């Protein structure tokens, strides 16, 4: 890694200035690693932080998961899985920043979460909730850039606009790295499982995903579909290409693609409502 990148990595990963992880999460981590802990015990720990618990419940009831009505943390843990609840807890401080200051990116992320869930269900894939979570988190690197390198972010936006580039290309011009790499650094420092970190790291280059290519492909296609629909603001004004690898891995038909567009567009009204509700 060249000097500029390692310097950037140092700035970005300086944990003192990253949003702090609630102490609850550390204890949850310890518990989920021990085989003896029950879901009830873990739920009790999360519920002890009321703000965090409320945030997790709101997200669990968002259209990105949207097929359940979850009213307690232990329900959320059983229906969505401990991993999903843990990742939602980990990301809650980032979601807070997105909801308030980066509404466009927040709506884009919710939209991709929804689309990924619908794709996974249509294809009958296992672990739909994990896929939806990976999709919700896929652009987390962009939040880090906007937090840690505010000047660079402005520059990235203006270069992308002037030269008509994709955000990813503009990021390379300005910071010699991009949101997928930065998201991967963060995922690593949070010890997120591969099934979440690979889609974050490779949703623009599915070929590089080694262990979770299908999940990464779902997030990639969901990202393209939401960009095509123009919902939210990912920072990109152009729709990227659906990669051949992703298309081949998922074996979607054009008929299924058409059905998905219809289903997604119908549900986006709810996503919009949800986002307005969260901002209120």
């Amino acid at each position: 890694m060249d000097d500029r990148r390692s310097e950037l990595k140092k700035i970005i990963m300086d944990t003192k200035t990253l949003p702090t992880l609630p102490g609850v999460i550390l204890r949850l981590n310890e518990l989920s690693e021990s085989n003896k802990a029950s879901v009830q015990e873990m739920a009790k720990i999360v519920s002890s932080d009321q703000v965090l618990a409320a945030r997790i419940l709101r997200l669990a009831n968002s259209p990105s998961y949207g097929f359940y009505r979850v009213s307690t943390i232990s329900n959320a843990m059983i229906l969505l899985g401990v991993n999903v609840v843990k990742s939602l807890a980990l990301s809650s401080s980032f979601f807070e920043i997105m909801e308030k200051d980066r509404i466009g990116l927040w709506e884009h992320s919710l939209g991709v979460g929804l689309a990924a869930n619908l794709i996974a269900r249509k294809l009958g894939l296992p672990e739909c909730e994990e896929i939806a979570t990976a999709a919700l988190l896929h652009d987390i690197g962009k939040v880090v850039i906007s937090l840690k390198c505010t000047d660079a972010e402005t520059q990235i936006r203006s270069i992308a606009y002037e030269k008509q580039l994709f955000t990813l290309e503009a990021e390379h011009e300005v910071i010699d790295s991009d949101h997928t790499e930065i998201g991967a650094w963060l995922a690593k420092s949070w010890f997120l499982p591969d099934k979440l970190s690979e889609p974050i790291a490779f949703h623009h280059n599915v070929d590089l995903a080694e262990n979770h290519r299908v999940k990464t492909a779902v997030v990639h296609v969901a990202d393209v579909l939401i960009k095509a629909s123009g919902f939210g603001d990912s920072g990109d004004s152009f729709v990227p290409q659906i990669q051949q690898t992703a298309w081949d891995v998922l074996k979607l038909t054009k008929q299924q693609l058409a059905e998905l567009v219809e289903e997604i567009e119908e549900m986006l009204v709810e996503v919009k409502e949800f986002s307005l509700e969260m901002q209120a």
Partner: protein
Amino acid sequence: MQKIPLMNAVAGMVLARDVFRNGNSTGFPVCSKNTVLTETLITRLENMDIAFIHVKGHLLPLDGDRSLGDILHDLEHRFVKVRQDPLMATLHDIYADYYRRLMGDDGGRQTE
């Protein structure tokens, strides 16, 4: 047809789909399609915690008050880098068809 939050419903709108108790077809059906909404009916649906309904036509502007022409123009612009690829051209056409159906002749604004 358009899906709208119940709070935006007004008397006179016509249901385009059956309404079910808990918002999906596994729930108890409470009101059938083609029913004309009245104030009383809307209040009743509210009391049942129905959040969304499907109504005929395209009554509420979804995204500002943009015409079909504007929407298709923006779609064209978003796809400008990938239109030459056959799969992406298909995806573009799927979206264009969707918008035409949503806002075009059958159930679109022109018929209101």
